[in-house]
């Protein structure tokens, strides 16, 4: 197996670049200003670099290769046409501080995408400044806080987060200076209304919800929850991580939410890039529009321009956001169009429920009844192997495993999100594999204990990594 670092294939004096030779004359940098400590960088040719990174890529697993049912991550197909369009130099070679009149196309894309997202979610306006879902959460919570501050209501220092929520929800609340109040779930996996009523008081700024929630269950009481919160003077934040389940079928604003973010890299099919760049646009209802981060893109007549609101929470990004990601999402929505958009949710939900019903006799289904775009099992019914072992064994069969040990409500959670792009054949094969693994756990448990067997590396020693950190090439030479 190729396991060299780029530093380890370096050979003195090799180079992989060329620069123009034109001479503007010699300008010396004062030596007192220059570095005296040398540094190591690889000395390699262009082909060395191409081979090295091509080989690294072959150690990865992407959506184009196969089924990737990673719950809550919406690993759908990323259309190639969107990549082609986003690579247009008319998008990649424009400076963010160019005069607005010279970037009308870019501004049009920002503006038109915001109109489409408003139509799909019911929110009045969107900002694209947040770079990711968690960044959107932070911006949204700042808006929530500012809203209460503007009303002179300084007591509202707490945000309610269900115990089923993504870890980013409490973390974002805390980064925004809120205290977190956790509220429990019912046996059906939804917010416990009675428990919610107990914690409501005049210190509650709002609640963060995902709907459907992280169990894949739609919060049926959402309208009642919204009324409770609004009557309490609080706002509702919609975590858009699971928007794929309802795209084209239901809209967060119609449910009573006031603020939301969307993960364009989930619902709108832009690639995840191994962890980013994503994009986390935030939408709000009318009364909060002026608080959105600066600047926003507006349309005046048939011209587009930036607009700075005096009441805004301020800037949350160096420039305007991850523009190229927005270009791809725009292309995706235009490609689907009116006739296809609702099929995203319908087919995603069909696939998830099909997985649920097909595996519920093998894997423990803690919550029965309809799920939405994802289903959560609580490990094997026979209990002869852990969720981790099942996940690692799935690697041997060429699958990316589901999200495991989340949500935290169950000890052996496995969260499966098949997405609308996967065919019945793909899902049938996966179901069959899950059943075979359950059998293996009984007949030859060591196969699971030691899995994976067929991957380029086997199970990695995470304890060693944390105890004796090797975090860079130089640490290795010590």
């Amino acid at each position, binding site marked *: 197996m190729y396991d060299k670092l780029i530093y380890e294939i370096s050979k003195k004096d090799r180079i992989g670049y060329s620069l123009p030779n034109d001479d503007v004359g010699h300008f010396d940098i004062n030596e007192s200003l220059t570095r*005296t400590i040398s540094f190591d960088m690889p000395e390699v040719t262009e082909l060395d670099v191409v081979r090295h990174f091509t080989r690294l890529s072959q150690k990865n697993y992407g959506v184009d290769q196969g089924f990737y049912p990673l719950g809550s991550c919406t690993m759908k197909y990323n259309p190639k*046409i969107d990549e082609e369009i986003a690579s247009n130099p008319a998008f990649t070679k424009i400076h963010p501080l160019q005069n607005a009149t010279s970037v009308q196309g870019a501004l049009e894309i920002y503006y038109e995408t915001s109109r489409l997202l408003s139509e799909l979610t019911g929110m009045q306006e969107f900002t694209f400044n947040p770079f990711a879902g968690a960044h959107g959460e932070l911006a949204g919570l700042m808006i929530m806080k500012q809203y209460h501050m503007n009303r002179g209501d300084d007591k509202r220092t707490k945000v309610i987060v269900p115990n089923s929520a993504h870890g980013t929800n409490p973390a974002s609340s805390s980064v925004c200076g809120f205290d977190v109040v956790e509220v429990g779930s019912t046996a059906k996996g939804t917010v416990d209304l009675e428990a919610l009523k107990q914690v409501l008081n005049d210190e509650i700024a709002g609640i963060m919800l995902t709907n459907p929630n992280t169990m894949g269950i739609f919060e049926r009481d959402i309208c009642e929850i919204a009324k409770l919160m609004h009557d309490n003077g609080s706002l509702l934040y919609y975590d858009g991580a699971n928007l794929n389940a309802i795209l084209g079928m239901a809209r967060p604003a119609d449910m009573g939410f006031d603020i939301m973010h969307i993960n364009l890299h989930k619902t709108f099919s832009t690639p995840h890039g191994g962890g*980013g760049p994503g994009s986390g646009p935030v939408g709000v209802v009318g009364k909060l529009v002026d608080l959105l981060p600066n600047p926003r893109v507006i349309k005046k007549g048939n011209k587009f321009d930036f607009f700075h609101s005096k009441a805004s929470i301020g800037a949350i990004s160096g420039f305007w956001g991850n523009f190229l990601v927005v270009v791809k999402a725009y292309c995706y929505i235009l490609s689907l*169009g009116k006739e296809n958009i609702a099929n995203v949710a319908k087919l995603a939900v069909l696939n998830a429920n099909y997985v649920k019903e097909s595996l519920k006799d093998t894997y423990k289904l803690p919550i029965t009844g309809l799920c939405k775009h994802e289903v959560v099992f609580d490990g094997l019914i026979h209990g002869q192997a852990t969720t981790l072992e099942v996940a690692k064994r799935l*690697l041997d069969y060429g699958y990316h495993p589901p999200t495991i040990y989340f949500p935290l409500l169950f000890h052996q959670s496995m969260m499966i999100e098949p997405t609308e792009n996967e065919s019945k054949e793909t899902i049938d094969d996966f179901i069959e594999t899950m059943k075979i693994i359950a059998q293996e756990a009984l007949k030859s448990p060591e196969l699971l204990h030691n899995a994976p067997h067929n991957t380029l590396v086997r199970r990695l020693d995470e304890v060693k990594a944390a105890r004796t*950190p090797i975090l860079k090439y130089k640490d290795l030479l010590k």
Partner: protein
Amino acid sequence: MYKYFPHNEPDIKEMLQVIGVETMADLFTDIPQGILNRKNLKLDKGLSEIELRQKIGTIAHANKQLISFLGAGAYDVYTPSIVGALLSRQEFLTSYTPYQPEISQGTLQYIFEFQSMICELTNMDVANASLYDGATATAEAVFMATSQTRRNKILVAKTINPRILDVIRTYTKYRNMEVIVVEENDCTIDIDDLQAKLKDDVAAFVVQYPNYYGMIEEYQKIVEWVHNNKSLFIMNADPSTLSVLKTPGEIGCDIVCGEAQTLGIPLNFGGPYLGYMATTNQLLRKLPGRIVGMTTDADGKRGYVLTIQAREQHIRREKATSNICSNQSLMALNTVIYGSLLGKKGLIDVAKRAYSNAHYLYQKLLATKKFVAITNKPFFKEFVVQSLIDINKLNQYLEAKGFLGGLHLGDGKYLLCASEVRTKEEIDKLVNLMEEASCTIN
């Protein structure tokens, strides 16, 4: 049927049967009637690839690609041809955060290599897997400092990019932290003002290197004062200059962060870019974001994992060091490929080329007598001059000729940049155009 949806009618029928419902609508009976399909969505009919290319082609046409002499936080840099080719490999592009290390060694290894390169350039102990952009990375650094020192006042040099200052202000406003700006003097930090404001409740002093005006400020003395005050020194540094300039490590920085767009990432109208952060071993456990470490597998083979995760939101929830979940992984790959191709020699060549281009431009501008020097302090690839020509009109003139002029900072102060991609011919042409313009303007 539609190209992204594989289900035909018999598939759907069979699957509904297994689920035990009659129709697709039955799958949505858990959504209250009042909110299900409440709105008849106003969307256009879906576009074919051919129509989509046409439509976006027309929109793209309304953008002007200009020969840029503008910097101010975003730079026209050299992106080698293989960057795009490798970044578009689906194994990198369409994978998620490397939660399953056995099938994510590609991503994990390049992040390890990214951390290695950032540490080499900055001369710091540890780096994380990247952050959103330079401005948010700086705000995260501020939070690290307030958490480490348990103090809540932040001094920020006025010579920092005002966009970064704005983001720091927004981030800190909701945490009851106080941001105090240290005034400038002759395009650098006003030392007297700093000394007056460096009190014992100050968590950190934040500076930019080279600063917003392109100036190379000397910080050693300041770092001493800051450390004597038991505050942290945070530097937002352009990593592309660190192959040449005295390093943050040598200067004694506690946290180094900034925008790594300058390491080979295209302008992209402001994003995606790449925030980075490096720090000392002492502050390792306060770092936000992902960190990759090298380890071994069950057979003793080398491998990589996400590590030191006890800092992170998926484990610590509200007690995490940050709410950050993702990073800008693919952009980190962009800079690793760039750094690998250029190597030590190339990174120095590029930095010196930008330095020389900017100094050549500066000299030529002063020689026109239409621009006047406002300081004689050293700068790197960006500088400020006093313009005797109306800058807004000048920039309009340049734009019409296909050139992007500098930024008007107000009062006739003109911030210009000549990066490594500018050629002598382009610089000469710009200066000629400016002379031409000065005859028609005013």
